[in-house]
């Protein structure tokens, strides 16, 4: 039965539908059960991944693939769901808008992400992408009464719709030329037959532009800072890890696997995009005053580092991307739990609002330092290995210049991360009253910090895990 393999997805959708009815039936002040049910749904789905582990098969007329790569991302995305739900509960309960639909949309978005990573069919990938995108547009504008949130949603929607159209056009050209939407079949077409015509070159550009928008690569990143700043802070946390990781997973399925015959073309394209994305992201982040905008540019830079892995396109670099995404999810979820807390308490979103946080919430401030260290890529944190694997893969395959740009950019990024650390530890607080961390946010913070350190110190088992889940051999 095919349905047993998509049990996690079925569980999430079922819970989401129940919550949707609940959101309509129960009054706003009695929706406290929603985040609890959503978390339980994600955890149940995590358990449901277990029976299918280690199996490899195709289901639903080869639209969906069950393999290690899909299972790996399924687990990552479900963890993202749990972490984001936990960090949203307090924030959403304080909003004017009813909170129920928020969790429903989040669960639909996670379902779409899972389908993006686990399908080998161009149309199924696109469908998953649209499920993520449409849920994300609404999530970005969830604070209806806030003009900034509206701006974020409109900007994200208009540019996202154009990107979707471009992507779909690209997919249709691939279909028109190859006669199939199945990536496995496309991969088996001979190199000569694929590399010749200019049509596929155009299609490839469109795919890069469409996906580049979704994961915010430069020059398709313009929407990101405004959408990140305007969206409710837990949604920003979700944007920075969820849809991005899903887009990158789909890109791994499409480029190094499906269109491997065109490697010489897109490899250079990705190399240039990676170099520009890292540099623009880091240099612009230096001058940001708002921490959500700073993290938007930081995440653009991180996508730039990951794009090196796509440009190199070897087994080692694809594994490096997987490790990077795994590390990045925990770092950003943990870091954002504190940004959410300070925003929720009305302390602020500016970097100067973090002044003296080391006295007001010493443990949380220390955890934030761990995350910043990991984002820079200093040893004993997951970020070090993440960058190291990308660096090593680039050097091995003769992309020395990209590796050097990566190292230079890591050094630049110290500048803006240090700004926040300095504010937390060296600046005097305006108001010295302690900031109490609620239990749910504390759990996210702790999970993030422990995972970041664990991946940095005991990375061996995780590397072996990724080797098992690897898509390229």
């Amino acid at each position, binding site marked *: 039965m095919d349905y047993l393999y998509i049990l996690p997805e079925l569980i999430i959708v079922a819970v989401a539908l129940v919550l949707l009815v609940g959101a*309509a039936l129960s009054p706003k002040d009695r929706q406290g059960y929603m985040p609890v049910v959503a978390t339980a749904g994600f955890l149940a789905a995590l358990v449901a991944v277990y029976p299918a582990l280690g199996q490899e098969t195709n289901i639903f007329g080869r639209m969906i693939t069950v393999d290690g790569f899909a299972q790996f991302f399924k687990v990552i995305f479900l963890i993202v769901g749990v972490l984001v739900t936990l960090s949203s509960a307090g924030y959403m309960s304080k909003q004017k808008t009813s909170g129920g639909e928020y969790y429903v949309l989040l669960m639909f978005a996670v379902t779409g992400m899972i389908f993006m990573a686990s399908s080998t069919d161009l149309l199924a990938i696109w469908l998953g992408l649209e499920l993520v995108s449409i849920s994300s547009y609404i999530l970005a504008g969830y604070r209806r009464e806030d003009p900034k949130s509206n701006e974020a949603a409109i900007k994200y929607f208009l540019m996202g719709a154009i990107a979707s159209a471009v992507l779909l056009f690209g997919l249709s050209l691939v279909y028109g030329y190859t006669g199939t939407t199945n990536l496995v079949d496309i991969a088996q077409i001979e190199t000569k037959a694929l590399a010749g015509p200019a049509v596929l070159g155009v299609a490839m550009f469109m795919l890069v532009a469409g996906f580049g928008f979704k994961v915010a690569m430069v020059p398709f990143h313009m929407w990101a800072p405004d959408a990140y700043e305007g969206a409710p802070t837990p949604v920003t946390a979700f944007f920075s890890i969820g849809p991005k990781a899903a887009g990158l997973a789909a890109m791994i399925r499409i480029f190094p696997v499906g269109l491997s015959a065109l490697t010489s073309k897109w490899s250079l394209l990705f190399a240039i995009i990676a170099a520009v994305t890292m540099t623009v992201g880091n240099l612009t982040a230096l001058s940001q005053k708002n921490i959500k905008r700073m993290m938007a540019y930081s995440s653009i830079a991180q996508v730039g580092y990951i794009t090196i892995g796509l440009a190199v396109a070897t087994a080692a670099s694809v594994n490096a991307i997987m490790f990077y995404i795994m590390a990045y999810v925990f770092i950003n979820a943990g870091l954002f739990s504190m940004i959410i807390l300070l925003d929720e308490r009305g302390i602020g979103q500016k970097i100067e609002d973090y002044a003296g946080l080391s006295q007001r919430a010493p443990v949380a401030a220390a955890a934030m330092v761990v995350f910043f260290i990991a984002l820079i890529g200093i040893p004993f944190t997951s970020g070090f290995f993440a960058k190291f694997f990308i660096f090593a893969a680039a050097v091995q395959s003769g992309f020395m210049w990209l590796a050097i740009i990566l190292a230079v950019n890591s050094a630049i990024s110290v500048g803006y991360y240090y700004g926040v650390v300095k504010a937390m530890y060296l600046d005097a607080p305006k108001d010295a009253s302690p900031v109490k961390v609620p239990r749910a946010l504390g759990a996210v913070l702790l999970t993030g910090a422990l995972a970041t350190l664990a991946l940095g110190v005991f990375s061996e088992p995780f590397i072996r895990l990724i080797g098992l889940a690897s898509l390229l051999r």
Partner: protein
Amino acid sequence: MLSWVNVAIFLIAGVVVVAVGLGMAWLLRPSYPDPKKLDPYECGEVPFGDAQVRFNIRYYIFALIFVVFDIESVFIYPWAVLFRQLGVFGFFEMLVFLVILVVGLVYAWKKKVLEWV
């Protein structure tokens, strides 16, 4: 190659049939124009006002709810034709599909989308 020739023949034939029909009517019919006849046809009503007006945003929500029924009919017809071959599994599969659509309708209903205020 031959199949494309067929397409071309159909294309030309289609254009010719319409052109001949309209052309003959134009040649043979008497022409007595008057202002009432030249009015745009609006289901027999006397047209008034401008067509370029703002529509109430509520129409948009109604259009969205309509999609629920639209999708329903699109899938139910082919399903009904093949009902015997699909068997019990097909029956429950359609039931699940309908439940999902009904959830959407119930949500809209409870949110008072169906009331025109």
